């Protein structure tokens, strides 16, 4: 502290006292600052997490405690009635099955196609590569709310309205470009030297690919497929436009339909919301680090 030259003229009289505060006071103030910062951290945590807590809390409360003018902050007594109601609500198992079919097919298809494309983009230099990258990026930027208009007209011509196959085709629009971008990022992160070393040691290109590249990219493949899964699982507008029969809808559309003109059964809605969010939360905790990387590496849709 004393080694620095004062930049501005320092007033003489009060300096001696202020420039060298007693150690105890400083430590005290520092401790106070640290406590304050961590208290702020607790406050931020509480505010951010509260809505999620409120969902779970409501899901476990009996109806009489939900429709109460003084809210209860703990589900006491707790009940599973809301979950039973949600599961027994019309079409629950249909929509779960539909969601799983759509998500499964789209993820598998996108992953295979995107991996091939990403391989070309990351490991080869060729004419038209940048153009392709720009194209993929721009396609991702076009919002689904704009694309849904021509997609609807296209699919109605092809008689794909109110069919899961129509939704699957449409989901490729945003999942495939996303997977290409993220997988390319993961492939670029594998050092070229490793492959080259394997090839020098007598491996073929395919051998190097299977033994060196694939294991290194495997976590990236898992992360990308999980994120593709999450995107499809959460998608609302396309499914809402394309699927009109209640037994053909997906979970988000079903969930958004809970609120009716006659009022809302908040308990079973929150239970259903909890069930919808659960698989996403489980997967998300596993891969969020890699996703942050993928998103800033050029994938646009969140």
């Amino acid at each position, binding site marked *: 502290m004393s080694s620095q030259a004062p930049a501005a003229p320092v007033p003489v009289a009060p300096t001696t006292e202020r420039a060298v505060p007693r150690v105890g006071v400083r430590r005290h103030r520092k401790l106070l600052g640290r406590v304050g910062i961590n208290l702020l951290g607790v406050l*931020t945590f509480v505010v951010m997490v509260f809505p999620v807590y409120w969902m779970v809390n409501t899901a476990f409360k009996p109806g009489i405690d939900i429709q109460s*003018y003084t809210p209860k902050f703990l589900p006491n007594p707790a009940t599973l009635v809301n979950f039973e109601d949600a599961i027994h609500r019309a079409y629950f198992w249909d929509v779960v099955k539909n969601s799983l079919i759509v998500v499964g097919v789209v993820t598998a298809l996108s992953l295979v196609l995107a991996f091939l494309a990403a391989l070309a983009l990351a490991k080869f230099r060729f004419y038209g590569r940048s153009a392709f990258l720009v194209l993929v990026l721009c396609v991702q930027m076009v919002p689904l709310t704009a694309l849904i208009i021509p997609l609807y007209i296209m699919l109605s011509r092809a008689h794909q309205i109110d069919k899961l196959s129509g939704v699957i085709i449409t989901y*490729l629009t945003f999942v495939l470009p996303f997977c290409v971008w993220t997988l390319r990022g993961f492939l670029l992160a594998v050092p070229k030297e490793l492959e080259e070393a394997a090839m020098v040691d007598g491996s073929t290109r395919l051998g190097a690919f299977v033994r060196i590249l694939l294991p290194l990219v495997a976590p990236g493949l898992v992360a990308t497929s999980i994120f593709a899964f999450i995107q499809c699982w959460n998608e609302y507008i396309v499914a809402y436009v394309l699927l009109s029969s209640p037994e053909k809808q997906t979970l988000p559309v079903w969930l958004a339909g809970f609120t009716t003109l006659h009022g809302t059964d908040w308990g079973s809605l929150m239970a259903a919301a909890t069930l*919808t969010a659960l698989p996403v939360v489980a997967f998300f905790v596993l891969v969020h680090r890699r996703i942050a990387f993928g*998103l800033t590496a050029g994938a646009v849709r969140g």
Partner: protein
Amino acid sequence: MLRGTAPYALLLPATAVVAAVAGYPLYLLVKLSFQQYGLQELIAHKGVWIGTANYAEIFHDRQFWEVVARTVVFTAACVSMTMLLGTLIALLLARLNAFMRFLLTTGLVLVWAMPVVVAVNIWYWMVDYEFGVLNWLLTELHLGDFEHHDWFVSPWSGFAIIGAVIVWGAIPFVTITLYAGLTQVPRELVEAAAMDGAGVLRTFRDITFPILKPLFVILTSLSIIWDFQVFNQVWIMRDQRPTSDYFVMSIYSFVESFKVSQYGLGAAIAIVMVLTMFAVTFVYIRQMVRMGDLR
């Protein structure tokens, strides 16, 4: 397989699919915007070419300009709140002790994982006019009488709630990414600045911000892209039938297309929305393209 053709062969399947499910619809969107395309045309599978009449109609439509202004203001508010709060929480994270940092990060990831439809429904329940916890809390805090207060009667407070859902959902990604960036800022630089007597604000402005500027550009651009086209939050919070006070561009385009069955007009609105978005985020696109070129 020849080495020269290998990359093209690898690209072919993905390219074919993207061309079919994104390229062709894009072309169709542009074409639709120059056509009269209503229910009749939908059944006949053929639009009627009317030149720029759709654009002329929306540009002379007072409601369209209101919607544009509403969208721009709402996007600006959401993006600035997201970036401000995201940055503050990231700076906070950097100063917390290890346990608190773990706790807050876990909370943020939990929020991040909430599907949009779930998030909207939770907030809708929290602001419910009768049994919502927010009205109870505000009344308890003596901030006014919020008993049976309906937040959606006034579009201003309605959009404040919708904005809150959006910002709440967007903060985790921004915060976690910025925090990752913050850990890359050399400690010596920050300490040296503190030694030289720079305050917290000054250190941020002159050291942290310039180093993290590329990250800020990316995050702001992504937020603009996401918030400018926002649909689900508004649509579901307004019971899937918003009144015209709640029209933002995506909703207006959607309603014109799917409720009024004026697909050509809806397409024209969508085109204007997309072009505006591309113009605003031009810097971002250029940067991403450059990054793609360099590698």
